[in-house]
């Protein structure tokens, strides 16, 4: 039974929901074993692309495990995603493009737009449930407040 577009969409929306809720273990289960996760953007200041986060499974797992130990940006994130496009290449993988708006809410409850960007995902559809094999969060926004320990 091949994996449908809807299953892929649900996977991507679930990744947002779990990260919002900071359920990091379940979040990591959505990825393939040797996935790669990146946060990138283009800087007109230095006229080149750049990476602001670049982690494999071990690194992301370690990073997420340490988050509670840090003095953290207070408040919470909500990720509003819309899957714009899904393209299949072969039977095993699909590419998904998703628009994401990340809202940041202060402890006092004030919400503002934190960043807008696009998930460029490579989805592994060879098994019976889809998994994220590669995620590149391409940020449009580069002024991201005081920053955060969390991935986007």
């Amino acid at each position: 039974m091949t994996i449908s577009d809807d299953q892929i969409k649900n996977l991507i929306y679930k990744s947002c929901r779990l990260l919002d809720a900071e359920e990091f273990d379940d979040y990591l289960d959505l990825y393939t074993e040797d996935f790669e996760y990146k946060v990138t953007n283009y800087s007109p200041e230095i006229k080149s692309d750049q990476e602001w986060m670049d982690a494999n499974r071990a690194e992301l797992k370690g990073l997420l495990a340490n988050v509670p130990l840090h003095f953290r940006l207070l408040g919470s994130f909500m990720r509003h995603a819309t899957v714009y496009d899904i393209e299949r290449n072969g039977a095993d993988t699909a590419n998904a493009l998703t628009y994401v708006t990340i809202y940041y809410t202060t402890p006092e409850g004030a919400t503002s737009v934190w960043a807008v960007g696009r998930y460029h995902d490579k989805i592994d559809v060879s098994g019976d449930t889809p998994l994220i094999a590669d995620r590149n969060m391409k940020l449009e926004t580069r002024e991201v407040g005081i920053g955060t320990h969390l991935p986007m």
Partner: protein
Amino acid sequence: MPISDEQITRLIYRSCLRLDAEDFEAYLELFAPEFEYRISNYSVEIRKDQRWMDVNQDEYKALLESIPLHSKPLGTFARHANVYDIERNGEDRAKVTTFLTVYYTTPDGGTKVFAVGKYFDEVDISGDQPLIADREVRLETREVGIGSIVPM
């Protein structure tokens, strides 16, 4: 093979992707011949509807091609859309309602909401590819910064 809702939804999202990328040629390919494009809103001040852009196919094509001749608008737009409703009337046409948030990011990377509104599209589904036959960009926001020579 009749055109699916998914294909219509992809068409709407593709129009956002290509306008964001300012790939005007590819963007115009999504429109049916003799299409019309309007940006409108209701002015509380003069208590009537008004149009801030109203163009047919030739006018819109010329307008888009002239954009690079103007002094370079600084910053970029990201159009985050969600298709809310698709209503078929007959074999040839479908009415599509899409919720739209347009974010503006300055060259320094700061992002703000530029405008919110809705696309009211009439999509031609008579061929093998769906095409936009009429688009009304209904703006809720009327304070749109310094304005924009790039349409919504």
